[in-house]
Each structure stands twice: as structure tokens, then as C-alpha cells.
């Protein structure tokens, strides 16, 4: 039973980590922007979703549409905030050093944290209706929430969608071109500004989506964005900062490392993720799937 629990818990946690981290990876990979505001997008997604759930389920409407409502609310909020951040703020700093854009996104994160509190106040929101609505199943004697298993399904869908979009679509090819050499891509006629905008919007909506699907499982409270940013960075650092496959690998490693620690050595839970990250970076400084990037001076 312990082995099965480690497998199931590790997979569920890894799926959640991947859903949360994929937007961050996409934005960094294409735009070289370390987006600290990703934590705020996650938090706004969670709050929007929780609010939508409360409004929707309080009137006894069908469960299935409730899922669509909560995700749509978060995607809409992610789109709007992403648009505002990219248009009003980040666009002015694309030609600056990566440290500068990172600081700008950190400032945005701090501002958005207070905006969040102005809108929703200090008290947490609890919206468990979707989580409870789908019940639980027993796998080998272990009770598992169906909602948690749905997260695994969502992670798989997102991974496949990301792979297909990047490898099999025209936009994906443009994305790869910009990722490897922005100036060369522009020279070949690619509208890099438009690619950046679309990438940032997708990344923002993915960040908000992470919050949206998490909301039914937690108390949505001030500060949830901070913890997510820390763990998301650890995941993409392990996998490789610019790689979707790296984010998936990093999520799996972190997910199973934590599950092993909780079940077998609980006192290691606090830092096992960072021990793993340190070990990986010692041997692979750019992450498992990352590679050195030529720096132009």
C-alpha cells in the first residue's frame, strides 16, 4: 500500500506542479523573461475561480458546466492581466538585460498582491464544491479524490497540446525560431513583437489556469502566489528553464521526491525538493534538458 500511495501521490503532485509551471517555462523559454508575476497570475486565477464557483454552485446548477465556468473565469482574468502586463510594462524592457525584466516582473508581483487584497480582502475563500462533486475512488485500498486524478488528465492534455502546438503548427515553428535567435527570426520576417505578446498571453492564462484548478482543493488565501513561485522555479530549474519537456521532467522528479519523503522520512519533506535541485544543478547547471546559451556582448 505504501508503494502504491507513493506512486499515486507522486503522480498527482507532479501533475499539479506541471500545470502550475508550464506557463512560466513557456514565457522564459521564448521571451527570456523570468516572470515573477506568474505567482500573481496563479493567485488571481484561484480567486476568480473560487468566486465563480461560489456564484455558480450556490444556485444548484449542473456540475459539469461549473467546471467550464471556473476555468473560463480564470482564463479571462489571466488574459486581461497578461495583456496589461505585456503591453503597459514588459514591452518597454525587452531590449534590456534579463535581470531588469525579472525585477520589473517582481515589482508587478508585489503590486498585484496588494491589488488582490483590495479586491478580495484578507479572508480566504473556500470553494470545494467541484472537488466534492466528483467524489473519490479506491485504488488498491487507497482512497483517492477523483478531482486529483482529473489533474493528472489535465496535465497530460496540456503536455500533448504544448508538444503539438510547438512541433506541428506554424506558430510553433515561429516560436522555436524566436526562441533560438530573436534577431534572425525578425530578419526572416517573423513579427517577434506579436509572437511575444501571444506567448505571454498563453503563459499568463496557463498560470491563471493553474490557480483555477487548484482553488477547489485549498483555502484560497493571501500569499498563495508566493509559495507557488518558489516551487515552480525549483521545478523548471531542475528540468531546464526553456524546455516544456524539462518542466515535465522536473515536475515528476519533484513530485515523487516529495511523496517519498512524506511517506518514508517526513522530516525531510521541508527541503527534499531543494536538495534534489542542488544535486541536479551540480551535475547539470542548465537543468536536465537545458543547454548553455551563447551570450552576445
Amino acid at each position, binding site marked *: *500500500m505504501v508503494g502504491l500511495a507513493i506512486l499515486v501521490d507522486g503522480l498527482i503532485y507532479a501533475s499539479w506542479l506541471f500545470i502550475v509551471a508550464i506557463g512560466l517555462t513557456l514565457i522564459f523559454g521564448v521571451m527570456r523573461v523570468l516572470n515573477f508575476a506568474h505567482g500573481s497570475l496563479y493567485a488571481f486565477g484561484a480567486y476568480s475561480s473560487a468566486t465563480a464557483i461560489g456564484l455558480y454552485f450556490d444556485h444548484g446548477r449542473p456540475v459539469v458546466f461549473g467546471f467550464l465556468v471556473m476555468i473560463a473565469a480564470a482564463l479571462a482574468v489571466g488574459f486581461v492581466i497578461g495583456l496589461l502586463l505585456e503591453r503597459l510594462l514588459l514591452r518597454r524592457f525587452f531590449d534590456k538585460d534579463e535581470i531588469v525584466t525579472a525585477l520589473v516582473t517582481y515589482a508587478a508581483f508585489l503590486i498585484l498582491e496588494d491589488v488582490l487584497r483590495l479586491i478580495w480582502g*484578507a479572508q480566504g475563500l*473556500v470553494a*470545494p464544491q467541484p472537488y466534492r462533486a466528483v467524489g473519490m475512488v479506491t485504488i488498491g485500498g487507497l482512497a483517492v479524490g477523483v478531482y486529483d486524478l482529473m489533474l493528472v488528465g489535465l496535465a497530460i492534455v496540456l503536455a500533448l497540446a504544448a508538444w503539438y502546438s510547438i512541433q506541428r503548427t506554424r506558430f510553433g515553428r515561429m516560436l522555436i525560431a524566436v526562441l533560438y535567435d530573436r534577431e534572425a527570426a525578425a530578419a526572416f520576417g517573423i513579427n517577434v513583437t506579436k509572437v511575444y505578446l501571444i506567448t505571454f498571453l498563453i503563459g499568463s492564462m496557463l498560470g491563471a489556469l493553474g490557480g483555477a484548478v487548484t482553488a477547489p482543493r485549498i483555502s484560497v*488565501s493571501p500569499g498563495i502566489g508566493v509559495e507557488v513561485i518558489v516551487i515552480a522555479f525549483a521545478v523548471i530549474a531542475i528540468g531546464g528553464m526553456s524546455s516544456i519537456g524539462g518542466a515535465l521532467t522536473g515536475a515528476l522528479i519533484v513530485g515523487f521526491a516529495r511523496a517519498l519523503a512524506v511517506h518514508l522520512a517526513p522530516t525531510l519533506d521541508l527541503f527534499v525538493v531543494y536538495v534534489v535541485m542542488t544535486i541536479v544543478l551540480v551535475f547539470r547547471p542548465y537543468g536536465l534538458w537545458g543547454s548553455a546559451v551563447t551570450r552576445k556582448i
Partner: protein
Amino acid sequence: MQMPKRSWAAGLAVALASVGTPAFAEGPAPVKIAVPVFLSGPAVGAFGEPSKNAADLVIKAMNAGELPPPYNQKGLAGAPIEEKLVDEAGSTATVVTEFKNLVERDKVDVVVGYVSSASCVALAPVADELQVLTVIYACGTSRLFDDGSYKYVFRVSSSQTSDDVAAAHYLLAKYPDTKSFSGINPNYSWGQDNWRDFMLSMKALLPNAAVDKELFPKPFVGEFGAEISTLLAAGSPIIHSSLWGGDLETFVLQATARGLTEHSRLVLTVGEQILARQGKNVPDGSIIGGRGRHGMLATGNAVNQWFLANYKKQFNTAPNFPAYHMLSSLLGLKAAWEKAAAAKGGARPTTDEVAAAFTGLTFETAGGPVRMARGKGHQGIEEVAIGTYAYDKKTDQPTMHDLVTYPAECVNPPEGMTSADWLKQGMPGAKC
């Protein structure tokens, strides 16, 4: 006739000065009280906002003389209180730096605040060094006075030891056949100390109960899937937890959804704080503590009646135990200040005189009397109530039944003994 501009200005200045003049216009100099509470970060909902609300409400009422007797004198012995709210959030170094700024730059007379156990332990020696009266209102670590002795630092609320000892007594009374138990506590000093005290209490009172699992999740992560799987596999009849705020709400939510609470009874030593808002999500049969006698566990005395009615009226929700702790701390300060002032014929007392008056003081709070009986008269002890929770679906209200109140001397170590030593020795001298 046109008045000269200077006359107009003077007249306007006089008129403005007289508008909204406080009742103390020509009275004693104000007492500046800094109130550091969490105004940002994950603790703002569970601790910061209720504590700020309580401080605002009580200080305003104190200045207006609206508190019930014996606290009905205006201000502090007639001196108006000026409240300075400060954010407690930040690293320990930041908190200590801000504390020094409050004293040296802002010249506050008293500091009433602090929730984080790490902050309390760090700044207690600084408070003594700066000779500023500091009333720690909510931090629960027993280490504050177990490991230190201070002249200017006071804590009205009991340490977390009393919560865990009371919980163990309650299990002995209600579930004497308990065979085993597990724990899930946040991985920092608060959680570690709570688990230590609960384990030692159980060893003393229910020695045949074995420990199944000891879990320490990282605070504020909001993910308890693996922990819940571990607890499901362990099948413990009792699960102890000192999780608080969002973590507590998340754990309860995930645990009930996965059926953990169908086979295990939760012992939530600080569960009271989420009942008013999340009562319908807390499983029936949970054993709930409230860090003393607060909230639904409070007495029906005049102080509690006043506080409950006015807090609900102003903030549209019931106060939780952090709000009660703020109330108790301000009442203790007022009682000490006025005792010191009375000894001087009503004159403003010095910091040393107030500290002397506070030492060993007994005063009434919403949870009954508090006696500053430990830590050389600087640490308060009070009764602790604990009960079993049920959500009344007919009235849509949280309720408590099978309430048991333990005397302060039953659940607190005697003066001169640390909590750990007292528990390891089987609680000698406990009067239950």
C-alpha cells in the same frame, strides 16, 4: 465690511481646531501604543485582520470609556491612547529592526503585538535592552519564558503547552481506550513544539497509546495529498494537529473529501479560529481547542458579552481567538497601568512602575481571570476549554458540546519548571 485676511485665517484655524476635538483636549499626554500584527502575507486572514479589528475596537472603546467595569475609565488612567498599527510581516531581522524603529524613532510608550513565535523570541531581549514595555499578544511558544527571563516583556495568553495538555486530558476523559494516534503539524517551531507537548502529555496520561505517524508539512504550501494518504494508511483513531489559518482549512477540506475523518477523529488545538467562517466544512466529532476560553469556548461574563456584541456589530463576523488575545492583552495593560497610576495618586506612571504593577497581576478577561503566575510574574495562565464540534444544519450554525474546562493549574507547568521538563516528569503538581 471685509475682515482682514489674517483675521479670517486665525478664525478658521480656531474653528478647525475645535472641530472633532477629542474628549482629552486638555488632559494628560497620550500614550502611544504600537500594535504590530500581520497586515500582509498568509497570516493576515487568520490572525492579522481579526487582531487589527480587535485593537481598533477596544482602543476606541477604551478612549471613550465604553468598556464594562472595571475597565470603564477612559484611556489608560485618563490618558488617551494613540494606536500605531504596524505590519509584523518580514524576516526576524526585519521585525527586530522595525521594533527598534518603533521605540527609538517613533517613541512609542508600549508595544502590544506579535504572533510569530520566532519574532517573539528574537525581540524579547531587545525589548528589555530598550526598556520598553512589550505585551506579546499571541505567539504561543513555551520557549519565550522557559528559556528567558525579562523585566519589560509580558505575555497574557498561555503558551501552546496548555492547549496540548488539555487535549490529552480530554481524550483521557472521553476516549480512554485510545490505542494510537498520529500528528500533522506545520514544520516550524510552533508545530514541532505542539507535537512534542501533545506526545509527552499522552505518554503521561494515556501511556498505552502508541504514536503511528508524525508528519510535518511545510507551512503555506496548501498540498496535503501525500500526508492524507499516509494517515489513511496508518488508520489512527486520533489525529492531532496544530495547523492554522489557510493550512488548517485546506487540510480539513482535503481530508474530509478523501474520507479520512470517517475513520479518524481530528484534534484541532487551534481549530476555533476557523469555525465562524468555515464551520460547515469542519467534520462533526472533531475535538476543538481555542487557546484558552475564546470564541465559542468563552465565558458569558460582561467582558465577553460586550466584546462579542460590538465586534459582530462592527465587523459582521464573530471574533476568533487572535482577536480575543488582543483584547486580553490590552485589558492586562490597562489593568496594570491603572494600578500603577492609582499607587501614584493618579499621576502618569513610568514604564518601570507599570512593569512592576503588571508582574503577578490578576485581571478579568472574556475567558475568565488571567493570572500572571509564571515567568516570574510575566507569563499569564488561564483556564482552557475544549469540546466536541458539531454543525447544526437546522440553524446553519457551528456548535460545541461536551465542553470541559480545565483549571489553569491543571494544564500549565508550575513556576520555575519548563514545559518540557514538567511534561517529561509526568506533570507533577498539576491540580485538575
